[in-house]
């Protein structure tokens, strides 16, 4: 067995509120696994329980078969970035990492190595309080890499990073996974995962919604649709509905469009031609991960805009 994260019937209640509800999933090595859910879905709480910071109400979480809190020292087993702000602003990046390295008996040269790796070597002796969020994220990633651990967990690592940083961090995650490590990455942004993750664990309101590959997940969501632009929208809608498609109006008055599902684009074109309906546009839309995510988590969004709760 490799460095597997196993979460088993994990539950956390705060008073009457259930933050995590009988959650079970497995994160395997050698790939990047995205941990996805709307804000307040329980992602951070789950990560804290895996790391032994919070005790589960019921259930268990293990890393490589052992509850993480059972290790006297942690950095060689799991590297984690929970919140980039979890540093003392008065210390330099080098001092922060030196103290952590020393606590785990990691040689001092490793501090310089990880600072180099994340691109903070030049500001190593500057106070962390003056760092931008992106720089703090890099420092948090350096902290996670310090012990060269087989398991890495990052909570919203891309927040506050510039585009160059985002590209760098994606390459880093891919490389870490290619090295055979377990990389577990939380985010509330689907688009982020589309470009980084191989596997997904999706949760909403503390419950598991899906645990599968990114490709399978995308396929589950909205099926491919075709957008048709035509001045004879009502006529075409009738024809397509008669042919078995589902038609929904789109666009604005004067530039009406139809979103058609259930018929391929070529068939729609042929039907329009046969019925002498003019088409201005015929576009195929593939299902996006974003749409799949929205669809699947729609019922479980904790904080929704414009709705009294």
């Amino acid at each position, binding site marked *: 067995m*490799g*460095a597997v994260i196993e979460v088993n019937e994990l539950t956390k209640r705060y008073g009457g509120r259930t933050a995590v509800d009988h959650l079970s999933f497995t994160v395997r090595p050698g790939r990047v696994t995205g941990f996805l859910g709307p804000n307040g879905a329980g992602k951070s709480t789950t990560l*804290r329980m895996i*790391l*032994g*910071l*919070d*005790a589960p109400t019921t259930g268990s979480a293990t890393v*490589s*078969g*052992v509850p*993480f*809190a*059972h*290790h*006297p*020292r*942690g*950095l*060689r*087993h*799991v590297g*984690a970035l*929970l*919140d980039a*702000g*979890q*540093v*003392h*602003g*008065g*210390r*330099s990046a080098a*001092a*922060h990492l*030196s*103290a*952590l390295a*020393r*606590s*785990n*008996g*990691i040689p001092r040269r*490793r501090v310089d190595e990880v600072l180099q790796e994340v691109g903070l070597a030049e500001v190593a002796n500057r106070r962390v309080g003056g760092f931008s969020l992106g720089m703090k994220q890099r420092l948090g990633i350096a*902290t996670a890499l310090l*012990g*060269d*651990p*087989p*398991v890495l967990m990052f909570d919203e690592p891309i927040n506050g990073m510039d585009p160059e940083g985002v590209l760098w961090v994606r390459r880093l995650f891919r490389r870490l996974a290619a090295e055979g490590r377990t990389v577990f990455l939380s985010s509330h942004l689907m688009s982020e995962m589309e470009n980084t993750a191989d596997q997904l664990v999706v949760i909403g309101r503390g419950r598991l919604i899906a645990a599968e590959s990114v490709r399978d997940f995308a396929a589950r969501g909205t099926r491919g649709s075709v957008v048709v632009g035509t001045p004879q929208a009502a006529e075409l809608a009738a024809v397509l509905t008669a042919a078995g498609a589902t038609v929904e109006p789109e666009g604005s008055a004067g530039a009406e469009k139809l979103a058609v599902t259930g018929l391929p684009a070529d068939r729609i074109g042929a039907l329009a031609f046969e019925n002498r309906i003019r088409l201005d546009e015929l576009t195929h839309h593939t299902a996006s991960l974003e749409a799949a995510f929205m669809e699947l988590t729609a019922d479980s969004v904790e904080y929704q805009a414009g709705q009294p709760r």
Partner: protein
Amino acid sequence: MTTLASVPPTTAVTGSPARFLDLVASEWIKMRSLRSTPWAIALTVVFVIGSSAVAALAADGARSGSAGFLPYVAYPPAGYWTLILVSGCVGALTVVSEYGSGLIRTTTVAVPARGSVVLAKAAVTATLWTAVGTVVSTGSFLVSQAVLGGQDAGVPLTHPGVFRALVASALLAPVCALIGLGLGVLLRHSAATMVTSVFTLLMLPPMFSESARWSAVVHHAMVSAAWKRLVQNWEPDPGSLGHTATVPGSWLVYVLWPLTAVALAVLVVRRRDV
């Protein structure tokens, strides 16, 4: 807690087993890498020794004849209450600042053995403040004797009660720093910890007078009262109405307060969510 044998061989960086001394070294790096620490200590040392100089200079004119060693001249309460205040608060800050910034989570992921972290912090805090306390206490004694020696009123270190006063004043700082540290772990919030530390160490003792027996017992169980008793080198007047603390009892107070505070902190930190 599991032994290292149960750790699966998945580690990439080869290293030594978990050593407590590494934790202490780590906490020492944290302590010295904050600019505020040396400043707070330097200012405190100057202030407390300065207060002894002022007290000695003022006592010089007021005294008639040689009354031997006057402990409150070398160790004026104003100066040492400041030492109580600063050591208590800085001791608390070593943990409260970690809770405030969330650094405690980073620390706990690095060292899941939470009790060991508290003990390492306590070791560094105790050592640092014992050193500071020794410098301050010795400095106070030397400065006061330098002033009084000019008037031929100085006493040697071997004078009855002088060495005890010096040691008690030196240990006052680590005792208070450890109490502050323990309270910091228990309360976590910076303002609450500061107020509680100041209240426990400085405000609470005067609330209990020495006139009634029960109230005197409570009073004598306080750190600042114990310090006062240990610094005082004259024996209590047998005819006095007030109850007086004993010297061994006062040493016991010095031991029990920090021990209880740190022990509670270790117990609580292991049971609580970080």
